[in-house]
């Protein structure tokens, strides 16, 4: 399938959301058509007010097999969570 269009990852900011969220991917010949395709595929039901697309090839992802060295060390480091402070009453709820 070497003639297939490149894959694009689509990020959409919802009506009330603050951040763009990854919603899926699609194929398109270029960035502009990717935006249009994203509009047609992912915003048909009024889901978004802003679209980002990025060619999937440009995303560098961490490898699932590195899960151990990457993430497990932080599991035992409870002191990184700010749960050991007494919050003064005047500060209110945080």
């Amino acid at each position, binding site marked *: 399938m070497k003639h297939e269009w490149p894959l694009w990852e689509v990020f959409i900011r919802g009506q009330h959301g603050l951040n763009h969220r990854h919603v899926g991917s699609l*194929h398109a010949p*270029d960035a502009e058509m990717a935006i249009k395709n994203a*509009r047609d595929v992912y915003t048909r039901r009024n889901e978004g007010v802003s679209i980002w697309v990025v060619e999937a090839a440009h995303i560098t992802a961490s490898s699932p097999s590195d899960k151990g060295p990457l993430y497990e060390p932080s599991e035992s480091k409870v002191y990184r969570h700010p749960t050991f402070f007494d919050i003064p009453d005047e500060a209110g709820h945080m």
Partner: protein
Amino acid sequence: MTDQTALFEFLLRLGDNTLVLGHRVSEWCGHAPVLEEDIALANIALDLIGQTQMWLGLAGEVEGAGRSADDLAMLRDVWDFRNLLLVEQPNGDFGQTLMRQCLFDAFHVELLTDLTHTSDDRIAAIAAKALKEVTYHLDRSSETVIGLGDGTEESHRRMQTALDLLWPYVGEMFTLDAVDEAMHTAGIAPDLTALRSRFDARIDTILTEATLTKPDSAFAQSGGKTGFRHTEHLGHMLTQMQWLQRAYPGATW
């Protein structure tokens, strides 16, 4: 011709264009070359059918004979349709469909733009709503025409073939008749001659970018918007579109 009759005819033209083209485009559903285009075409078809409901709904009101948009869409035969010959032309290949779409969209955008400041508030309101949809249609179809025209040798050849095939149907969009003149005098319909020059400017830019050659001919097929003589394709299309009402008259759900 009374203004009321002319207005009814004028609205039928608007509604039949969107109905027939909407149905044509919907024929791609499940058949488009890629999923993204399939959904995009279905969206466009649905936009056009939605516009049809508004135009034919208003046409039924203006006629005052108790006919609904559904009645007008499903219970008329070929000779009652007032759409341009361009929109009833078969889909052909994907390039031909997009060329047809682009030619119509370029006209449609200009027409709706003018109709947003027409003297009839109901027409202006429908046009304003439709214009947003159609602006996107043109954006998409023109970009695809450019991409395919200025693409590979094969895509270029197919787009040029489509343009040569469809160009004779462009002239009908701007051919004036008694209905157009009555509506123009009433302050409803735009000046089609001025509209043509804006259409030409748009299309010239698109075709140049698409490296396509506009046929050097002003010959225009006619008979669609007057209903005088449709091409043979419309009747076949209606047998599909109106199948349910023909097989089960009055069926509802």
